[in-house]
């Protein structure tokens, strides 16, 4: 997005133009929900986090630097919300919704495997889970992951390495039988 066009949208949104705000942030909502779900593993908590992030994003629009990328800026707000929610809750709930995950006998192994990966992700420290989700689930480049978490690229790399070391048993390729 051109700097002038982005600045115009930001000014219009600050003045109360909802469609301008939607043009800036609306297209990022899906990625924000995936990030939140990846971090929180709870659909309702993810939706709450992104709604709160959208509210805060509107409030903070005046802080966006001219020409700054909107995606890492908004995802950083989402990630902060997720961290706050994760810190705030002392319980952990895993929803098993029959409408979204329909186990069938022939897929049982694969489903168990995916559940194992989710369980392993939940056991990771939040900052390691965060970089894995950003890098391998949202497919962001390392530089953008660094912008979202507000740390140097080197820190991102080391966190990813530690996270992958912990996850390695779950990422082994499945055996192929002749």
């Amino acid at each position: 997005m051109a700097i002038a066009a982005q600045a115009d949208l930001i000014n219009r949104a600050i003045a109360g133009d909802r469609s301008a705000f939607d043009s800036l942030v609306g297209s990022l909502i899906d990625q924000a929900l995936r990030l939140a779900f990846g971090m929180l593993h709870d659909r309702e908590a993810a939706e709450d986090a992104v709604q709160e992030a959208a509210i805060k994003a509107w409030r903070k629009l005046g802080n966006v630097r001219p020409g700054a990328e909107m995606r890492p800026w908004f995802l950083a707000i989402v990630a902060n919300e997720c961290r706050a929610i994760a810190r705030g809750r002392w319980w952990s709930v895993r929803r098993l919704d029959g409408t979204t995950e329909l186990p069938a006998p022939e897929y049982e192994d694969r489903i168990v495997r995916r559940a194992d990966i989710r369980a392993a992700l939940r056991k990771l420290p939040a900052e390691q889970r965060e970089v894995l989700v950003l890098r391998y689930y949202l497919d962001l480049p390392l530089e953008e992951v660094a912008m979202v978490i507000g740390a140097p690229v080197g820190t991102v790399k080391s966190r990813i390495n530690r996270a992958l070391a912990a996850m390695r048993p779950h990422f082994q390729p499945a055996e192929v039988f002749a």
Partner: protein
Amino acid sequence: MEELIREEMHAALDIERFDASLRLRFVAAAHADHLRRTSGGSVRAHFMVLIPPLRGLSAVAAMLLVVVLIGMTLTGGRLFRDWSAFVHRSASSASEIDQRELGQLEARPLKLPFLAISADCPVGPTSAIEGYGAGQVSGLGVGVSSSSNDIWGTYYHANLFLKPGQHGLVLIRGRVLRNGSVIVFVGQYSAGQVIGSDKVDGKSVTQRGELVLDPSHPPQTAPLSGFFDPGATAAAYARWSVTYGVPNARDRDADCVGWQVDSLSFPTETFVTPQTMFQ
């Protein structure tokens, strides 16, 4: 290895489908928050601008004189026009409604569930009048648009009835329960974010994701012959003729539509209808 990790992460986490309408909900919530914050602030700011010059009695008197003069000018010039507009006013369109009240309603989350493909459509409840919805609002299909089955989807005409005695705005949103698709509204009472554009009955229309009824300006009043059973009260139901569109979907995915009704005047209501709203 990186590709494997990526695949495994997607496989593990792509278990939740998020409704595309959440975008509307979150933007609406942020907008409502913006309106709440700015309305109080701007009033205070204006007072701060006005207060400093009003020092001393002469300043107050001058201010009063200006107010009186402005009032006389406005009253003299606009009295007849305002009265005429009041007498001949028509049903309010979405552009005339209270945006702050609408923002509060839009910020309310949708309570409509997803429905599995194999599940039966839980149509109902129905009202004392012959329509869907047993609360303050009832809907009844009255026709299919001439542009039905076009590339985008199908449009239907329906009557929406509102029980007497309501004063606040009524926001209506619809979703296809099996896939979460947004039901669009076209025409005078459509509101909210623009979803797209299309041609209905030969006319170009804008698709929007919300319908807003303003009970203080009802366009028509029931009864219509054939719509009410003999036992139901026939007096003073307000009736809006509306057009909504259901996007095409494969097989029977779009055969079941959920509706949510929000107002500050009564608790949130939901009901489920077939695509047509026909009884």
